[in-house]
């Protein structure tokens, strides 16, 4: 525990110290320049990690964003004589605007589609830079001069200037400026990712549908992630332009984008150290690959390690000998290849490709992830993948007010849901009274889950109306409906698997944050206050469902029964007036079910209204005030549980054939 504290406080300090003394250690101008490039790429990669690591989208367009930043600086200098300092914020702004453009298709598509979109974006940008010669000087590129340390030319020539203003920056000074930018980036990124915004990024990756149903708009936050990422790429671009002092279109091509992806993957996603390590690797890679001797030594070293590891696996894991032998053979082949090779520069890209394959197969978590796992095996107490959140419980976990809305909270009026030729819901009308538990039952395929999806805006009904608190809900999007006070759980659990329990509940509390993006980035008092309040509230909600002890566990490590309870806690965090439970008891053991029933009773007691879909009839009959029975999308019965249980049509629907046979 103490060791971890020292590590987590000491890490940044050590990093800062390294950044400060580095120029004293690295005296060769060549290597100092490489160090500057590492710092610049680190800024970009930290931004790329927001998109790639946190929201889980592959971007093959970040080299283009870097190019946009660089060309913003270049064009400003070439056409308007605007210097280094103003170029930095302007590059951020211009690149952010392009980030919005890049994110627009993200509303509709994800995964490979979005990857191709970013690739197309990168190609277009490169073509435009090449072709718009009036603006960008085309393939000839732009030359830049070393920036002035303090640009006071705008004050006019007559003012007597102190020497500083005309002094051009030395490489060391430029190094400190980029290092400062890097530190600033780290601070801002850390704040964003630790805030409700960072949790939203991860939530939308793990389950977009659940995010929307928690009132966290997937689209809005995806755009935000791209904008943050693009802004940092823009900053890196402007720094890059002045560091290289010459930019040309083919500096910013497809291969560089792929290198950036490799860097984040190799270093380790979802960490601050990972992207920086990745930057070191991709900057030194070309140097490494230009020195054949060094390359042979490294290939030999890798082969040696592989042989040792392979020998160990050969003894310890006799079942997978063939499988484990493959990487060893490949590493040996790689070493042989390095010995045969005469001119390494010709095969630079192939080696680079092999590296990507190696990382994808054997290092999917990157170096940082790998080290974390290794350390966790030796000293488990040292490693914590998530920030541990301690909070006192505070106030009542669940509160609800139900004003009388003509005695009806939710009014489903003649809803029809048509999928092609199938009528999943056929003129169903339901009235849910405030403060009651309303059961919705029926055989498989009778339309219950469809109804749930209509109520939460995932489907738009073909006909009919849904009124909640007297307001029309049909056609509203999921995140807005959640905001109105309808929360739900899911039949097939939709937790944010890689977030901890308390973070899951905090996503549900997203609506309690008022702080703006700027406040988050600057760490102003309001966001701190809100975060503290939300954590306390989240803790009390976990208490409410009996999961407080596990607050800092990852949700995916929970047993199934507890996952269902966590979904309820997360839904309650929305402060809903109406809670929709979709088969909460499915797959639970008998004691779990009893616990669940107790919690549902407590929720009702707190004043919430509940719609319950459930197949465990004992649960339905024991809890519900009113039960509606669906069959083939139609309402076939409604009434008190005992009434429904005895209804001939219900028995027919459930048992089929001869209704009386079972008695």
């Amino acid at each position, binding site marked *: 525990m103490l060791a971890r504290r020292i590590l987590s406080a000491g890490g940044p300090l050590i990093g800062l110290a390294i950044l400060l003394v580095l120029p004293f250690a690295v005296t060769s101008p060549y290597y100092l320049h490489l160090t500057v490039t590492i710092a610049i790429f680190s800024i970009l990669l930290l931004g790329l990690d927001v998109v790639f690591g946190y929201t*889980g989208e*592959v971007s*093959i367009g970040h080299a283009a964003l870097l190019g946009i930043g660089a060309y913003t600086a270049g064009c400003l200098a070439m056409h308007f004589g605007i210097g280094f300092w103003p170029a930095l914020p302007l590059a951020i702004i211009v690149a952010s605007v392009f980030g919005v453009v890049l994110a*627009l*298709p993200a*509303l*509709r*598509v994800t*995964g*490979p*589609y979005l*990857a*191709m*979109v970013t*690739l*197309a*974006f990168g*190609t*277009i940008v490169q*073509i*435009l830079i*090449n*072709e718009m010669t009036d603006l960008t000087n085309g393939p000839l590129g732009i030359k830049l001069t070393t920036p002035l340390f303090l640009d006071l030319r705008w004050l006019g020539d007559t003012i007597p200037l102190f020497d500083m203003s005309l002094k051009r920056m030395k490489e060391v000074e430029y190094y400190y400026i980029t290092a400062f930018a890097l530190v600033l980036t780290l601070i801002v990124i850390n704040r964003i990712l630790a805030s409700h915004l960072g949790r939203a990024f991860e939530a939308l990756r793990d389950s977009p*549908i659940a995010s929307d149903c928690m009132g966290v708009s997937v689209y809005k936050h995806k755009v935000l992630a791209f904008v943050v990422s693009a802004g940092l790429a823009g900053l890196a671009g402007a720094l890059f332009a002045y560091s290289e002092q010459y930019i040309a279109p083919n500096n910013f091509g*497809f*291969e560089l984008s*792929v290198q950036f*992806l*490799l860097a984040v*993957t190799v270093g380790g996603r979802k960490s601050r150290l990972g992207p920086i390590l990745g930057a070191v690797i991709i900057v030194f890679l070309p140097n490494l690959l230009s020195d054949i001797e060094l390359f042979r030594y490294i290939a030999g070293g890798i082969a040696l390690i592989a042989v040792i590891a392979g020998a160990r696996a050969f003894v310890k894991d006799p079942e997978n000998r063939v499988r484990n032998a493959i990487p060893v053979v490949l590493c040996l082949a790689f070493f042989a290849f390095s010995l045969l090779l005469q001119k390494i520069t*010709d*095969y*630079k*890209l*192939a080696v*680079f*490709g*092999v590296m*990507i*394959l190696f990382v*994808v*197969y*054997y290092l*999917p978590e990157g170096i940082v992830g790998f080290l974390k796992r290794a350390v966790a095996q030796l000293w488990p107490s040292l490693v914590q993948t998530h920030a541990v959140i301690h909070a006192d419980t505070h106030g009542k976990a669940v509160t609800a007010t139900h004003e009388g809305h003509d005695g009806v909270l939710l009014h489903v009026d003649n809803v029809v849901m048509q*999928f092609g030729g199938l009528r999943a819901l056929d003129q169903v009308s339901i009235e849910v009274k405030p403060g009651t538990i309303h059961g919705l039952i029926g055989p498989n395929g009778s339309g219950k*889950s469809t109804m*749930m*999806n209509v109520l939460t805006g*995932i489907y738009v009904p073909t006909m009919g109306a849904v009124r909640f608190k007297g307001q029309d809900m049909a056609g509203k999007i999921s995140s807005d409906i959640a905001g109105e006070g309808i929360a739900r759980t*899911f*039949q*097939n659990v*939709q937790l944010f698997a890689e977030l901890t329990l308390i973070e899951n509940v905090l996503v549900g509390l997203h609506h309690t944050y008022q702080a703006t993006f700027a406040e988050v980035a600057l760490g102003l008092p309001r966001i701190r206050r809100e975060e503290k309040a939300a954590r306390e509230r989240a803790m009390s909600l976990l208490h409410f469902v009996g999961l407080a002890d596990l607050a800092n566990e990852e949700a995916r490590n929970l047993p199934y029964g507890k996952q269902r309870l966590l979904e309820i806690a997360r839904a309650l965090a929305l402060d809903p007036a109406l809670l929709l439970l979709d088969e909460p008891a499915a797959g639970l053991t008998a004691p779990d079910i009893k616990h669940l029933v107790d919690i549902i009773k407590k929720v009702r007691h707190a004043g919430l209204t509940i719609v319950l879909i459930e197949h465990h009839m004992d649960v339905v009959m024991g809890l519900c005030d009113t039960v509606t029975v669906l069959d083939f999308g139609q309402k076939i019965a409604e009434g008190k549980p005992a009434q429904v249980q005895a209804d001939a049509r219900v028995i027919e629907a459930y048992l089929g054939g001869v209704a009386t046979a079972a008695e």
Partner: protein
Amino acid sequence: MNILLQLIVSGIAVGMIYGVIAFSYQLTFATSKTLNFGQGEALMLGALVGLTTINFLIGQALGTLWAYLLMLPIVFAFGLAQGAVVEWLGVRQAVKAKSEAGWIMATIALGIIFRNLAENIWGRDALRFPSPLPEAALTIGPVRIQPMEIAIVIGALAIMLAVEIFNRRSIFGKAVVATANDRDAAGLMGIDTRRVITFSYALSSMTAAFAGVLIAPVTLTGATMGAVLGLKAFAVAIIGGLSSGMGVIVGGLILGITETLTGYYISTGYKDVPGLVLLLLVLSLKPSGLFGRATIKKV
């Protein structure tokens, strides 16, 4: 008016090439929901292997046309093998390693490796591919057209038709369609769906390799010829819808013609832009493609 007609006719041939590559994307996407981000390199390798083969055959005192026809089976066989390698090294292993988006990065990496190897084997300069047909343009009414352009249209239609017939008529083709329809249910029929997916990658690369030797005689051949073609063909696959066979032909023609028009009326430097902009627009507005059907999302 005549110029416009001429431009449209010229756009058709290149459009059909886009259509064929887009079709090759569909083949793997249908069965595995993945695709080869290095598909352009499959095309490039097909063209370069074809070039070496045809030069060898011409060296054996064969006529260009005969050499070209004899070359085709070798290119096909090479394409099949290359596709199987991509599936095995790039897709299956990456999916097995459970690394997120791993197959995307792995197929990109394979594409980079193939391109680099091609540069080292065939050099960095663009090479001329001997044309099997006379290069003198035919004059039909107001437009002039190269015989090879007609061959491209015929060849493109022929390969799509051949795959279509295989899928509809043979039991193995039906097994491929079944896997595309519903992988689990196909397994219940006794179909080894993993093998079907490897096969669809092989077929996909073969189709791309064929596209490579179709287009090679009318353009320059070289290690970098594939990248932009692959990307634009993806645009066509998106515009046409990843599930619609007619869609890729129409999408390919739209893109091919737009490009020749842009090249003539604006500037050749910009001719790659409209396709990519169209890709961004279609994905932003109607991601299932102009001809694809929207799917219902399930919870």
